[in-house]
């Protein structure tokens, strides 16, 4: 039994033995994060669906001046609230939120309508209030439709083909597939996956230096006949074991949760069968040694467990920095970018979600570079464990 395995086994045993924090770490990261994520998606969907289906309510002032328009709006399912407000009253009513929108029919409406001139309508709305925008847009559309119908009738009466009004016919073609749209929503998934994974190894990474020192077990440990770097390799590998366990749990839980969240109703499909779950886990796995070694190095420079928690906590954000650039710069996968840890994994996971084929070169670059960097950082951590100042 080499010292590496001895240390690794002991660290795993001790961590699992601390049942409360172990269970908490398993529940908090891998289960709570996907659950929160699903809740957010579910709420967004309810919101979207509710807004398009909800009956439209409009306050109309002086509705008696436009009986035909009122009849048409009622036909379209608009609930009319009849009021008698003047200009100032209407402004006040919208600003105070009594009505989302007020449609005021000016006195000139009937006269203009009869003479086939543009009949004035006044729509009071608060453009700064995002929650009413959808309703006012719907109302505007209905009013435009009514106006257009009247105009066409007028042309027909005068013997003109109403089609003359359609000089161009624009047709929208949205090329985003359902899976593409879901990727936008799931883009931040990589961030969540990477963060929960790192958090699973945080405690052990700190324990290797600051923890052992504070407990007074570091000095005895350094007097066993084992090369010092092997002791820290054992600790890093134990951290990796927990990180991989968390990674698997997180991705599996996310897949399950997203499946039940019913993304299809939003016109999205996610490719999250057992095969893609395994593939996503495999693609993120090389980040474990890199992350564990990185946190261990950061912790090695601190003077106490508390200080280590602060700095390692901040260091957790480092892997998310490249992921932010994806969003800001709209980066697309390329060989060079695959070399960046966490960015490469993000592109791989995205492709898996989209059910797109992954170029073997990309796979090789991402795996290779992340593993090489991980090995390098582990070596550095081993060197740091040889320093005398480790004893504090």
């Amino acid at each position, binding site marked *: 039994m080499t010292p590496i395995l001895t240390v690794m086994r*002991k660290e795993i045993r*001790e961590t699992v033995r601390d049942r409360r924090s172990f269970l908490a770490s398993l529940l908090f990261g891998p289960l709570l994060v996907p659950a929160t994520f699903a809740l957010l998606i579910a709420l967004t969907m309810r919101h979207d669906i509710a807004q398009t289906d909800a009956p439209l309510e409009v306050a109309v002032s002086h509705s008696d001046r436009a009986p035909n328009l009122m009849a048409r709006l009622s036909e379209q399912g608009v609930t009319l609230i009849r009021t008698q407000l003047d200009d100032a009253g209407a402004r006040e009513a919208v600003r105070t939120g009594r009505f989302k929108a007020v449609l005021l029919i000016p006195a000139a409406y009937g006269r203009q309508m009869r003479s086939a001139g543009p009949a004035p309508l006044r729509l009071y709305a608060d453009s700064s209030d995002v929650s009413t925008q959808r309703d006012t847009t719907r109302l505007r559309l209905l009013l435009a439709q009514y106006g257009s119908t009247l105009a066409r009738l007028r042309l027909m009466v005068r013997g003109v083909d109403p089609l003359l009004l359609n000089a161009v016919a624009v047709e929208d073609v949205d090329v985003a597939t359902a899976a593409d749209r879901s990727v936008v929503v799931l883009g931040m998934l990589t961030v969540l996956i990477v963060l929960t994974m790192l958090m699973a190894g945080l405690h052990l990474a700190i324990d290797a230096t600051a923890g052992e020192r504070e407990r007074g*077990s570091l000095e*005895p440990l350094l*007097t066993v006949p084992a090369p010092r770097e092997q002791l820290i390799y054992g600790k890093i590998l134990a951290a990796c074991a927990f990180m991989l366990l968390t990674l698997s749990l997180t991705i599996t839980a996310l897949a399950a949760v997203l499946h039940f969240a019913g993304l299809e109703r939003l016109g999205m499909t996610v490719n999250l069968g057992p095969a893609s779950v395994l593939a996503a886990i495999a693609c993120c796995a090389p980040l474990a040694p890199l992350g564990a070694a990185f946190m261990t190095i950061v912790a090695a420079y601190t003077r106490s467990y508390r200080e280590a928690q602060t700095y390692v906590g901040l260091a957790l954000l480092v892997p998310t920095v490249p992921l932010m650039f994806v969003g800001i710069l709209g980066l697309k996968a390329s060989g060079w970018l695959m070399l960046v840890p966490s960015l490469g994994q993000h592109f791989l996971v995205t492709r898996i979600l989209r059910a797109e084929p992954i170029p073997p070169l990309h796979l090789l670059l991402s795996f290779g570079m992340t593993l090489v960097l991980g090995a390098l950082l582990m070596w550095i951590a081993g060197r740091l464990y040889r320093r005398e100042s480790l004893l504090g």
Partner: protein
Amino acid sequence: MIEAKGLVKRFGAVTAVRDVTFRAEDGRITGLLGPNGAGKSTTLRILSTVLQPSAGSAWIDGVSVAAEPLETRRRIGVLPHGAGVYPHLTARENIQYFGELHGLSKTERERRAGELVGRLGMDEFADRPAKGFSQGERLKTALARALIHDPRNVLLDEPTNGLDVMAVRSLRSLLADLRAEGRCILFSSHVMQEVVALCNDVVVIAAGTVVARGTPDELRGLAARSDLEDAFVQLVGGEQR
């Protein structure tokens, strides 16, 4: 046998150990006596390969500490100052973990751990997690852990600190037993009475330098005082503070 020759240890501008030379023989208990901050812990850390000396050399059973740290560590059992144990492992698991790191087979380390548990009177708490241990229980666990590989040389840094009278007595009798087995025992202390009660040889350190060496009786003669405490005060350079 432990030998130190001209040991020097500097931490930046601070010189913790200036000139430490002594020899601790097998079958004897050697006490490293000195006031706080005299360089006792640093000396022990150099001898246990945790620190590299800035100058000078040391040998354990003739093995160079600096040149062969792994071989040195096989020959020593170390109880550092304020030694801690792993709280979620039982005392027995703590002890056996170090046995494993020393390369003992499973049966061997179980047998040795069992022996030490009996010898140190740890039966009551050997299989409890170390989390709630008293200071005495923790010390016994750390001591058993240091002895798991049956080392010929035992280094203890202020082992009696914070122990109650009963625990100190049982530690003394254990050290006497270890001496009777022909081991070389080196322990540091700033408590005069303890050193007199236990040691065959005393090395007095002050300000990083060995100021006197000898048996307790010789030291009394050296300082021309009948009382060892007076002798100690005179040797380390008068009343401090």
